[in-house]
């Protein structure tokens, strides 16, 4: 058993760290603390994201982990982990959660050569942005019940229906869509994956403002939207299986824990320098205990993330599927605990957002709101727990 990184891995990590440290010097104030809010809430934040994405593309870092035949370097998964760890600990943008995180792996598995050239190359170069067309008003956790149709019409497909919770739909250039190509079939059967441009006639994007008033999410309406048949990815009607098969990207959840570590560092600084009732907050036994508990959660979560990446790299996907769900549940719920403890510790100041008086620049009160989106999105904590029980413990599926 050996947790050490090789010299090569350490050097790589340093290279990533230096790059992101440098890049973040150009972050506009609107980008704030990054994350999905930083990237999508303001035009300035999105522009910064695109800039960083292009720089990453020039370095070849967006596609390092891709197989060589898809234009990547076939870099080991552990190096992908180090890249993600470095990027997320600097709260840097540049990696498109949807384009690079979800659609690229789908293309790698299922696209034909023409599509790989046409669609993967711009992703590798950081020159295109995507949003995800999965959830619908009546199909959230039960995604397989979705009703948006894509009906074959000669050399085209005609799309009708509605998507919802489309993060960044108002900024992304393209979407990858899951739609029903065979309306006779129910549930997972008869679904297909498509690439499409968001500026096509018949597409309407309407904002859904987050509880803090920020614009991240959207509804997307399709009215007789025509897309060429060459934009079907993989086999028609086999899209459901394809969405399940795209898990071989780094899913350790390391970002939750490295971001949390940065939060905890700032929180420790805050309690060491802030006095209440004549004493530093750091002297308060209740506050000390809260901070110790967060430290423990971050330690064990970070270690679990490394274990997942290591197992995934070894091809231990069946364990990794359950453990990746564990990391998502644990990491996203830990983000809630961090925000809650921090804002409790701050007392009255915990409610301040954009104010010179706000401790930690108001980041914790912002996180207190936004973290609720994370325990819901991309498989709610409840769905993740079902997956853990089924795949991790072999309990019966319903």
């Amino acid at each position, binding site marked *: *058993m*050996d947790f050490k990184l090789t010299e090569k891995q350490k050097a790589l990590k340093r290279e990533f760290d230096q790059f992101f440290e440098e890049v973040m010097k150009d972050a506009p104030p609107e980008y704030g603390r990054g994350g999905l809010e930083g990237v999508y809430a303001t035009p300035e934040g999105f522009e910064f994201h695109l800039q960083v994405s292009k720089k990453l593309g020039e370095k070849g870092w967006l596609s390092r982990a891709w197989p060589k035949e898809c234009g990547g370097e076939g870099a080991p998964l552990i190096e992908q982990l180090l890249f993600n760890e470095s990027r997320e600990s600097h709260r840097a943008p540049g990696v498109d959660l949807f384009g690079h995180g979800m659609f690229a792996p789908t293309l790698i598995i299922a696209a034909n050569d023409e599509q790989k050239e046409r669609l993967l190359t711009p992703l590798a170069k950081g020159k295109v942005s995507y949003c995800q067309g999965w959830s619908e008003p009546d199909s959230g956790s039960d995604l397989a019940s979705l009703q948006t149709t894509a009906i074959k019409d000669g050399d085209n497909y005609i799309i009708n229906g509605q998507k919802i919770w489309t993060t960044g739909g108002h900024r992304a250039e393209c979407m990858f869509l899951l739609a029903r190509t065979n309306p006779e079939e129910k549930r997972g059967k008869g679904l297909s994956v498509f690439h499409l441009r968001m500026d096509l006639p018949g597409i309407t994007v309407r904002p859904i403002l987050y509880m803090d008033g920020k614009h991240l999410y959207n509804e997307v309406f399709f009215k007789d939207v025509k897309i060429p048949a060459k934009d079907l990815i993989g086999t028609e009607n086999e899209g459901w299986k394809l969405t399940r098969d795209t898990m071989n990207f780094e899913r350790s959840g390391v970002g939750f824990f490295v971001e949390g570590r940065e939060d905890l560092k700032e929180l420790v600084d805050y309690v060491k320098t802030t006095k209440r009732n004549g004493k530093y907050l750091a002297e308060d036994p209740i506050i000390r205990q809260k901070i110790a508990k967060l430290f423990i959660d971050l330690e*064990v979560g970070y270690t679990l993330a490394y274990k997942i990446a290591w197992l995934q790299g070894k091809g231990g996907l069946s364990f990794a599927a359950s453990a990746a769900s564990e990391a998502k549940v644990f990491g996203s719920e830990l983000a809630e605990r961090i925000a809650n403890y921090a804002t409790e510790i701050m007392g009255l100041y915990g409610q301040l957002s954009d104010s010179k008086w706000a401790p930690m620049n108001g980041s914790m009160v912002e996180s207190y709101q936004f973290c609720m989106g994370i325990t819901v999105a991309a498989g709610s904590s409840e769905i993740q727990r079902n997956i853990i029980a089924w795949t991790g413990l072999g309990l019966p599926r319903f």
Partner: protein
Amino acid sequence: MDLSFSSEQEILRKSVAEFLSKECSYEKVKEIEESAEGYSPKLWKKIAQLGWLEIILPEEFGGFGDPFINLIIIMEEIGKAAFPSPFFSTVVQSGLTILEGGSTAQKKDLLGKIVDGKLLMALAQYEQEASYLETGINLSAKLSGDDYILNGTKMFVIDANIADKLIVAAREDKGITLFLVDAGAKGIKCTKMPTIGMDNNCEVIFDNVKVSKADLIGEPGNGWKILQKAEAKIIVAKCGEMVGGCKASLDMTAAYAKERKQYGVPIGLFQVIQHYMSNMLLAYDTSVNYLYKVAWMIDENEDVTKEASALKAQVNEKYKFISERGVQIHGGVGTSREFDIGLFYRRAKAYEYVAGDSDYHYEKIAAALM
């Protein structure tokens, strides 16, 4: 980075697991729990023959120089089997303390006897006040000629009732000092106390007990330093046992949830049970991976003060959580002496106190961070 166990380690784990499942069923565990000795001398002899007690012995004293992780593997399997034995008190608590602070002659003599299965030992640290801190040690040691005279009472001394020798932390003029005392010495009165763990927690009274000046572990006044250094390793080893108990609780509960039917279906089909159990698995996976991370750090000679505390507080809470849910999911039978999940529920509470409860460790972490 390679997070796998070596093939030797896999073999070690398998041999310990097989021995315990053959020789010490949960029925047998309950029988041992109910005995006054609280352990099986027969099984102790056997595990000595199997070489388990050599696991901490450095090469210079005839051991195989096993990495610390190998001790954790044994402890984990002991935890799964809920095996009651003086392994923790003798090999872990006393053995590691001797390794940390003992003279070469003491190491050779005492560790040699431990390895042969001929010496049982206990560590006497806590007192009536039940403090884990240095200030909690007040048993007095007064020099009188070539001897020290010990007076006071030690509490929660694990396996003092079966030990041949005790390591006693006492307050000498120069500070906390560790003494090596024959358990049968004149003036010692040992009483086993009934506990939730049904283990050998003892009250030990020292009434003018004479100890030779030569029987010190370390120098006068540096006892606390030795205890603290040994504590980190003792904690990690105990956590190995506790994590093993988590695993056994988890596995037996999952098996029960698949087999027990209500409303015509296995209860494991119900989402409420699935969510309880996914929380249990998450609690286990976060604990077991961190356990080996910290054990590995010990093998790398890194300072693990903060990490050992984080591990103990984590495992304290998660073992209680997993075993508590385990009993609940078992329903009525889970509360019975006949079923085995109760063994773990009781141990989770008992072991919470071993080498520091969660509040003690939270404070240690906070002190290290701030």
